[in-house]
């Protein structure tokens, strides 16, 4: 669809006067700007010593939440691995242990390939029971690829580290659908 003539505003190149054409005032003005910046305080963050103050909705390392009894909250519905655009979530589901009276299904294995992950947060959005969340931990390193495959225990330990701290993801609320992991009210 062509743009309506009424919406078109023609802009002409500005005509340069004598001072503009000499360029020297403009250059001096530019030099003034750069010199001014020399005396401004630096904004650099000295990373390993200074930690960035990330917002609570930062999308960093995943965690698997625990329910009130300390069990993994995940019900292995595969919504996250379905939503994952990078196909980095690998789940093996199994019938829940017999002593988990309120649960039918749980993840026997839950592995996120943190190297493949693009940290888009779709898994978190897809999760019907708020079991997976992205924390503000961002500086994870590993010496091997295997080390960066975060399994269930590792992801639960991320929860243990981040839960209750000031950097707890702000979305941690019991969802309406978190039927299988929330204790009956």
């Amino acid at each position, binding site marked *: 669809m062509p743009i309506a003539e009424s919406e078109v505003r023609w802009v002409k190149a500005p005509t340069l006067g004598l001072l503009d054409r000499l360029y020297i005032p403009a250059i001096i003005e530019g030099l003034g700007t750069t010199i001014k910046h020399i005396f401004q305080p630096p904004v650099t963050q000295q990373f390993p010593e200074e930690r960035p103050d990330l917002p609570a909705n930062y999308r960093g390392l995943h965690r698997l939440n625990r329910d009130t009894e300390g069990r993994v909250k995940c*019900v*292995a*519905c*595969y*919504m996250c691995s*379905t939503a994952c655009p990078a196909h980095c979530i690998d789940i093996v*589901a*199994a*019938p829940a242990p017999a002593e988990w009276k309120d*649960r*039918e*299904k749980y993840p026997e294995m839950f592995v996120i390939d943190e190297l493949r992950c693009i940290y888009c947060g779709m898994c978190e959005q897809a999760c*019907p*029971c708020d079991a997976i969340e992205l924390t503000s931990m961002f500086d994870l390193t590993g010496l091997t690829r295997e080390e960066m495959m975060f399994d269930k225990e590792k992801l639960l330990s991320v929860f243990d580290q981040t839960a209750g701290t000031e950097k707890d993801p702000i979305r941690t609320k019991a969802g309406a*659908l978190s*039927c*299988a992991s929330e204790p009956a009210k």
Partner: protein
Amino acid sequence: MAVVLINDKPVDIGNERLNLVQAAAKAGVFIPHYCWHPALSVVASCRMCLVEVGDKKPDGTVAMQPRVVPACQTPAKDGTVCITNSEKAKFSQARTLEGLLLNHPLDCPVCDKAGECMLQDYSYRFGKAQSRMIDPKNRPANKPDIGEHLSLFTDRCIMCSRCVRFTREISGSAELQVINRGHHSEIDIFPGDPVNNPLAGNVVDLCPVGALANKEFLYKQRVWFLKSQKSVCAGCSTGCSIHIDHNKDIVYRIRPRENPQAQGYFICDEGRFDFPYINGKERFDRPLVKPAGERSEPAESAVAWETALPDIRDVLKKSASALAAVVSPMLTVEEAYLFAKLIKGFSPQATLYLGWVPNVGKDESFPRDRKGNPVGPVQFTIRAEKCPNRRGVEEVLKHFQGEVLGFDRLIADISSPLPTGGEGAGVRRRPQALYLTAGYPPRLGAWLNDEQTKTLSTIPLLIVQDLAPTPITQTARYVLPAATFAEKDGCFVNHANLAQQIRWAVRPGTMGRTDGQIFLSLLGRRGLIQATKIRQELAAEIPFFAPLAVGDLGEFGVKLG
């Protein structure tokens, strides 16, 4: 000639006896339904198919009934008027669905049915998003031991009673019934009498919600990850149409596919649950060769296809005049054709034998009561002949050899004092080389007894094509991997001469090749096997298979003979 008006659209239903759900389907209008199933009796218990119904009088006036009625229970007659999209009909359907969902636990995340659940689909299309239920829901206890392969999630049930009717009308065993009344009704079994009839697995497919689950498939995969391939069961000579549900080269589930020409709507548990061998770890996936002269030595070494196949062709050529080949009834028609062509190509004196035809017990027909007596007309038959393609292979052998020699004849011929050489096509010889194709599923057990194995191992050159190690592969000089029905294209001819197409769903291992591909390569033809082309070739050559010239046999197959 009857004309029914569905949403003001006239549909000619001819002389068929249809209900309004079926008549509407002819008009391209879908009426939601849970309890109605074409193979089962009508109970109109779910009330999901409520529509407005009226009659068009000969003078053109229409008299509508004042209330909505279930479409599944209303026969379509000439002049029946059915309205499915009026406010009243839609309101009734939405309220019905709300009622069905009152006690439904909404545990879709952990439910195996999610993704193919009719509650989900209908809620999306016909229902409303939110429940107004504020009271606590009924949470009856699950019944995980309702059957050997079945688990009942009682709280998800919407009491459509399809499963109950199935056990009464199709399997005849009547294990399931509804207990209690009203909101507290549940599906249950008699204590200590689980649903273990040979057709029990069908109730899982019949269940429109996630209440009845297949324990073998439970929590293995979400259904939306599965890819489905239309195929044919290789379990018996009935040749039931099936869906093979697979993902990443692993078969996870086999479901029945409706085929009025073959078996109807259902399959037996034998075919449904006998697929794990396809994913088996012990299967061969490359040729194994034993050094010549060391036949008792079990140390075989895997070799590349590129060296094994020319080798095998050479040794077969050398012993062409005393060559025998066993054509397994597990092969497709195309493979049997290629194999026969290959063997007869070496020498017209080479002999083809039909492979072992497994016969287990007797044909089982359903419905039958607990004592095994038939009740009413036959709805489903499990055949004793546990191979899918005896008819097809026989016809191929007849064409190439004029007669069908059974497996017993082979055993007899090996131990007979027949000459090992000589001229003439009609003269029978003692085989000096044997190319044996097998591919029988392990469920059938060891198909050669010790004596037969011993007899076979006296043959100097033995080539065995099989799925997994067996005593006979131990003694063979060459072992080639066979492929299962889920891995190859082709067609099977069932007991009633119905040729049905099978299509590959998974790949035969990393290095594996299908039987047809092996025969094709041995024939010296290049490229990958194209079953359709081979089928057309054999249709042109063998008169019995002439109807296969269409190439693609469609969903339901083609009748032969």
